[in-house]
C-alpha cells in the first residue's frame, strides 16, 4: 500500500473501519449483558447449520439450504437449456409455447410458484408404472427450479444471440447442420458468456431457498421459527443476525466472483 492512499484504498479502509465498529459494538454488547445471548446462539449454532443439536448427522438447517440450492440449480440448468434453446428455435410451433412458458414462469412470484408446487404435485405419482414420491424437499426443488430455469433460459438466449452472426454464416457455408453449429461453434463460445449469469442466478437461488420454509422442510428458517420458539424475544434478534450473516457469507463471494467474470467476459465480441 502506498501513500497517499488511492481512492480504492481509502474506500477499503472505510469498509474495514465499519467492520471494526461492528465488531467493537458486538464486543461492547457482549460485555454489557449480551454475552449470554451470544452464548445461546453459539450453543445452537450446530442446530442452525446442520439441523441436529450435535452437528452430526446433517438433518437440515443451513446445510439443507445449500443442498436445496445445488439440487435446484442442477434441475434449473436442465430446464433452462431446454427452454432457452426452444425459444431460439426457428419453428414457431416450438418457439411460441416456449416463450409463453418462460414469460409465465418469469412473471410469477417465487413464493407463489413454491406454494403452487407444494399443492399441485401429489404425494406420489405413477410415471410409466414406476411410482415416484414427492416429499416436500423434492417439491421445493421443483418449485425453485422452475423460475430459476426460466431466468436461465433468458441468460442462455442472450449468450447465444450475442455470438456474432458471422459465425453462423461461416459455419453454414462450411456445410454444418444446425445441431452441429450449436455443438461445435456456438455453444463453446456462448458457454463462456453464460457462466457469470449462471453464477449470479445461483446466488439468487440460494437466497430464495429461505422461502422453502413454507414447505415445512427443516431448513434454517424453519428451525429458527420452530425449535427456537422458546428462546426469549431478545435472543431471537441475535439468531436472525447470525442467519443473515450466514446467507451473506455464502452468497457474497459468489456474487463478487460472478461480477468479476462478467467484466472479464465483457467486450470479447468476436
Amino acid at each position, binding site marked *: 500500500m502506498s501513500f497517499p492512499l488511492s*481512492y480504492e484504498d*481509502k*474506500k*477499503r479502509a*472505510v*469498509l474495514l473501519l*465499519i467492520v471494526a465498529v461492528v465488531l467493537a459494538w458486538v464486543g461492547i454488547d457482549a460485555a454489557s449483558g449480551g454475552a449470554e445471548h451470544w452464548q445461546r446462539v453459539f450453543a445452537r449454532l450446530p442446530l442452525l447449520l446442520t439441523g441436529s443439536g450435535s452437528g452430526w448427522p446433517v438433518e437440515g438447517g443451513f446445510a439443507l439450504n445449500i443442498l436445496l440450492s445445488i439440487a435446484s440449480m442442477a434441475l434449473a440448468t436442465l430446464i433452462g437449456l431446454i427452454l432457452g434453446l426452444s425459444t431460439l428455435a426457428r419453428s414457431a410451433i416450438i418457439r411460441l409455447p416456449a416463450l409463453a412458458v418462460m*414469460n*409465465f414462469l418469469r*412473471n*410469477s*412470484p*417465487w*413464493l*407463489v*410458484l413454491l*406454494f*403452487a408446487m407444494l*399443492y*399441485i404435485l401429489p404425494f406420489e405419482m405413477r410415471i410409466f408404472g414406476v411410482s415416484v414420491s414427492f416429499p416436500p424437499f423434492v417439491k421445493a426443488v421443483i418449485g425453485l427450479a422452475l423460475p430459476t430455469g426460466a431466468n436461465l433460459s433468458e441468460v442462455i438466449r442472450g449468450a447465444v444471440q450475442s455470438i456474432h452472426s458471422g459465425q453462423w454464416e461461416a459455419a453454414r457455408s462450411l456445410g454444418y447442420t444446425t445441431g452441429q453449429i450449436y455443438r461445435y461453434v456456438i455453444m463453446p463460445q456462448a458457454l463462456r458468456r453464460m457462466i457469470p449469469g449462471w453464477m449470479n442466478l445461483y*446466488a439468487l437461488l440460494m*437466497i*430464495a*431457498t*429461505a*422461502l422453502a*420454509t*413454507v414447505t415445512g422442510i427443516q431448513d434454517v*428458517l424453519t428451525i429458527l421459527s420452530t425449535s427456537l420458539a422458546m428462546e426469549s*424475544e*431478545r435472543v*431471537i*434478534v441475535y439468531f*436472525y*443476525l447470525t*442467519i*443473515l450473516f450466514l*446467507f*451473506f457469507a455464502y*452468497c*457474497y463471494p459468489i*456474487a463478487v466472483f460472478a461480477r468479476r467474470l462478467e467484466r472479464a467476459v465483457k467486450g470479447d465480441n468476436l
Partner: protein
Amino acid sequence: MFGLDYSWLADPAYQQWLLTGVINTLKLAALSSSAAILIGLLGALGLTLRIFWLDALIELFVEVFRNTPPLLQMLFAYFTLSTLGLKVTDPSTGLSVPLLSAFACASISLSLFGGALAIETFRSGIESMPRSIIEAARSLGYGRWARFWRIEAPIATRICLPGLTNILTNLFKTTSQASVITVPELMYYAGQIYNDTFRTLEMMILLLFIYVVLVSIITFAMARLEAFMAFPGYGKGH
C-alpha cells in the same frame, strides 16, 4: 374443465377478500417501489460525488441487501421494529401495541431491498454513458448543470429504463412474501380462501394468473414508456 371447481368464486365474501388482497398488494408495491426509486436515485447520486466514505457506506448497503434473503430481511424488520420496537399504549384499551404495523415493516424492508437493487441499476446506467458524449457537450460549451439536465440525465434515464422494469417486477413479486409476516395482501387472502374451501389447486392457478397479469401490465407499461421515450441510438431507438 379438468375437474376444476371455481364455484366458490361466486361467493361475495371471497370476492371481497381477493379484491382487498389485490388492493393491499398494489398499495405495498406502489409504496415500496416509489421509495426504492428514491433511495436508488439518492444512492446513485451519492456515488457520483466520489466521496470515499459515502461510496463505501453505499456499497456496503447494496451488498448486504443484495446478498441476504428478502424474506429474512422482512422477518428481521418485523421482529425488531414491530415486536421489540417502539410501542404505544392504546388509550381505548390500555394495551401496548407496536407503533409500526406489519404493513409498515413490510414496506420499509421492501423499500430498502428494492433501493439496493435500484442503486446498482442507476449506477451502472450512469457508468455506461459514453464518455465521448460528455466531452462533446463540454466542447460545445455546456456548463456542469446544463450538461447534466440536458444531456446526461435524459440519456441515463433511457439507459436505466430496462433495469428499472426489472426492479419494479422483482419488487412486485417480492410483495407476496409479506404474507409471511401477516400483511393482508393477495397471497395472504389466497391462503385464507383455500383454507376455507380446500380448493387449493384452483386457488393457486387463479393466484398465479392474477400475479402474471399484474406483472405483465407493469412490463407492458414500461415497454410503452421505453418506446415513447426512445430516441435514435439509445435503447429501443436502435
